Structure formats: C-alpha cells, structure tokens
C-alpha cells in the first residue's frame, strides 16, 4: 500500500517538474523577490521590511497559484488522457491510494518550489544585510506556514478536481482561498450578529478553511517572535483540515463512474 502511494506520488512529482509553466512562475517569483530589493532602495529605512513583506508575499501567492493550477488538473487530466483507467484497472491500486498519492506528490512539488524560492529570498536578504541575524529565524516559521497553506490549498484543489472541470475547480479553490483569508473577519461578523445569522456565519467561519492563521508575514517582518504553541496548532490544523478535505475527495472519487 505504502509502496503504491509512493509510486503515484513520485510520478506526480516528476510530471509536475516537467511542466514548463511551473518554471516560469518560480522564475517570476524569484524576480519579484529581487525586485523587492529595488523597491526597498527607493524608500527610507524600510529596505528589510519591504524585502520581507514583498518576498514572502510573492512566495506565498505564486506558490498558491502553482498549487491551484497543478491541483485542479491532477484527476481531471488523468481522466481526459484516459490514463486513469490504465492505473486503476490494470494495476492493483485502490482509488483512495490514487488520491493520497497524487496529493503527496503535489505537496512534495510545492515544497521543492518553495525551497527554490526561499533560496532566492534568503540570498536577497543576505545581499541586503551582509549577514543573517537571529530574528531571521522567524522568517523560516513564516515560510513553514506558507507550506502549510499549500497543503490545505492542494487538498481543496484536488477535491474539486474529483468532480468538477478544471475551470470550475480553479474558481472554487481560489474563491475558498479568498474567503479563507477573511475567515477571522467572518467570525468577527458572526460574533457581532445575532440569531440565525450568528449561528450561520460562526459555523461557516469554522467549516471553511482559515488561511488567516497562517499569515504571519507582517509580524516576522517586524522581527516579532512566533510562539511555539502557534506553530504546533497551525501544523495540527493544516493536517486535520487537509485530512478532512481529502476524505471528501476520496468519498466522491470512490463513487464516481469512470467508465
């Protein structure tokens, strides 16, 4: 079972790496990081702030675009090319193994991409500061949270990919990402409202993905420490939420008639 999942994950990773669009996005993200150096130069005394804010935002946003565009094609492309039937019919692969393998492959791709972009980011930081400072370790936490965001986004894109067209999957996933970044505001609105509106909005705020908790870019830019408890709870949240969404994907995919 583990071996089959690993093979699917590896193939997914290899296929994603071959995708040239991906390279364009990574290069563009690194250019953005480099560009933030220039932006920092035209301001006064906020060079590091601009570099961190713009650099981490670029890594997060381009990573999310990559996650969505790769994630939405994971299942639908296989159906379109009719390669899915070969995998599921000719080999002893369970449908859930296929989904989990695809997801792990995509997560691995995104981690490697984030790694490349982070190297560019830290190189720009080193160029600016001439050395690394102790507060720079918090930037690693922000990058880790960005990767956690990728895991949740990937699971959403994959889930939509199991029952919807690539275009609709993109719209759904991106919409959930936008809503998720305002999840805290949605909860705040729920707390202020009364009656059924309160129940509905509070319920939605907890059921919809919360991407706001992963965003500590502004804080680490000001060298504010990120508590260890937050790292633990955010890790658990990403894992649990991705598991829940992947379970939906497995349930839908299991019932889908692929003939």
């Amino acid at each position: 079972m583990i071996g089959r999942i690993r093979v699917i994950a590896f193939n997914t990773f290899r296929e994603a790496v071959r995708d040239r669009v991906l390279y364009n996005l990574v290069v563009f993200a690194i250019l953005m990081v480099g560009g933030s150096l220039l932006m920092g130069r035209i301001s006064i005394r906020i060079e590091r702030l601009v570099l961190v804010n713009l650099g981490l935002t670029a890594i997060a946003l381009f990573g999310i675009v990559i996650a969505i565009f790769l994630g939405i094609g994971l299942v639908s492309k296989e159906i379109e090319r009719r390669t899915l039937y070969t995998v599921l019919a000719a080999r002893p692969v369970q449908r859930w193994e296929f989904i989990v393998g695809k997801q792990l492959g995509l997560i691995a791709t995104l981690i490697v991409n984030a790694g490349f972009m982070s190297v560019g980011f830290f190189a720009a930081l080193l160029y600016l500061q001439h050395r690394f400072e102790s507060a720079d370790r918090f930037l690693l936490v922000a990058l880790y949270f960005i990767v956690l965001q990728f895991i949740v986004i990937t699971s959403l894109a994959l889930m939509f990919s199991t029952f919807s067209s690539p275009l609709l999957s993109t719209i759904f996933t991106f919409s959930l990402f936008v809503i998720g970044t305002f999840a805290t505001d949605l909860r705040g609105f729920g707390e202020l409202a009364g009656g059924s509106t309160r129940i509905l909005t509070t319920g939605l705020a907890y059921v919809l993905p919360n991407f706001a908790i992963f965003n500590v870019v502004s804080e680490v830019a000001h060298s504010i420490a990120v508590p260890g408890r937050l790292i633990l709870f955010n890790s658990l949240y990403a894992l649990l939420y991705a598991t829940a969404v992947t379970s939906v994907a497995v349930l839908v995919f299991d019932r889908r008639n692929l003939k």
Partner: protein
Amino acid sequence: MNSRTKASVGVGLLLFSSLGLSVLVLRKSDEAREPTILKESLYIPSAKAVKALSLGYTGLMADLYWTRVVQYFGGKHHQRADEYKLLAPLLDITTTLDPHLMIAYEFGSIFLAQKPPEGAGDPEAAVALVKKGIRENPEAWRLWYHLGYIYFDELHDSKTASEVFLQGSQVPGALPWMKVLAAALAQHAGEAETARYLWTQIYNSSNDPNIRANAVKRLLALRVDQEVTQLQELANRYRRETATVPGSFLELVQAGYLHGLPVDPLGNPYLLLDGRVQVSNPDSLPFITKGLPPGQKPSMVVRPKSGSS
C-alpha cells in the same frame, strides 16, 4: 455491509473527526496568536495608497472599509476597551475612498468623540472628520449639526457650538431648529436643558438604531443627574432640619419628605448611603455624572474649555 460501504463509513468517520478536531485546534491557534501577534495595526495606513490600490473601485473599497470600521468599533465596544486606536485612521481611509458616505461622518463623529469605553474619547479627531465631511459635502446641513454637538457636548465650547449651529442653519434645506439651538446656546441657556433638547433632536431625526439607542442612554443619564440633584437637596434639607444624617430613603419617606422610595428611570432603587445619594447600578447608566459610587469617574467628564476655534 460490503467492504466498499465499510470503507466509505471509515472515510466518513475520518472526515468528521478530523473536521471536528480542526475546529478545536483552530480555536487553540487563535488563543496562541492573539496575545502576541494580533496587535492593532493597519497594513496600509495611507488613505491615498488604499485609493490607488483599489484600481478605481473606490466605492466598493469604501464599503469594505466601512464594514471594517463597524466590526472594529463593535468588537472594541463589546470588550469595553479603553483604546480605539484604529478608529480614526479607518474612518479617514473610508471617507477618502468615498467622500459622500454620510453615515461614516455621522457615526464616526459620535463614537470618536465619546469617552471610553463608549467611544474613542478623541473629540478633536471627531471635529476633523466632520469638517472633512462638510468640505466634501457642503450641502449636508446635518454635518454642521454634528459638528456643533461635538463642540457643545464634548469640548464644552458653547460659543463655537453656537456659531457652528448658526452657520449650519444657513445651508439650504436646514431645519429651523438649528437656529433655535444657535440662539439657545448664544443666550447661555441651562446646559442640561440644551443637552436634553439636542439629544431629543438627534433621537427624532436619526433612523440609525445605534444613534437612537445612544441618544436614549444620554437622555436617561440627564434625567438621573437631575433626579440625583433633587434627591440630594432633600437629603441635605432633612439633615439640616433634623440634625441627623439619613441612613436610607425610608427615613425621608417616614418623615414626609418623599411620597415613596425613589427609583431611577430603569426601575432600580436610588440608594442613600451616609447622606449621599447613589444609583444602585451605575453600569446600566453609562453617561451619568452624578450619583456614582465614591471614586468612580463618570464616562463623560466635564473638561476645561479648550481653545479650539
């Protein structure tokens, strides 16, 4: 139950348990984040920058910012916060994005001016906001009214308030009572009486439930202040005439000074402790200045006259 159904039940259980646990973890994550990270800050403090970033959709952006103002104020008010640091900048951004959003000037000026925890306690910022509104909306006579109210009630500058009411009364469409207010202030009418008139006008002329509820609270406070003053005079008279400090209102009733035990407008009994009149539940009457327990400061303190123009 076949193996496929069993597997589906298993996945379903995994789905609900992981989703349920994610809600619990999310709450824990919020707790971990709030004390250290969720500090009050505006990511884009410049109203002009926000306007540029809105790509021309300033109306929609203003609506979003206004929603944020409401949520921010509501949240802070609910916590009975002492500081509303972001209220003024948020209102500035909102009204820069949409200079004709009248509710932002009206709501904003009232809640910027009121003392914490009822508001930000920044009447100067409220004056600046309403003046901005008047510059952008010269036909809006109601903004002159709000400006006059801030000068009168929060800055205790009756002279400027009178001038503002008079200027506002000259805007086409202004209601006649603006002139009455100007005149009343110019003649140095009793402050409580004028305040009562102002709040009654606010209550009658506004459709906003928040503003109306606030006006009711103010009117109740004025009535309590008046009643406490009258009851204190009675207690002092009893003390003079009987040479004893009254321990409760029952003594005053038995001596024929009162017909019955006095209650405040919310139905709570007034207290008489060591000859001093007090309300029994000061938290329910946020703007009272009299009858407070010893040491408790009123929400709306009388400030020295500012030199504002």
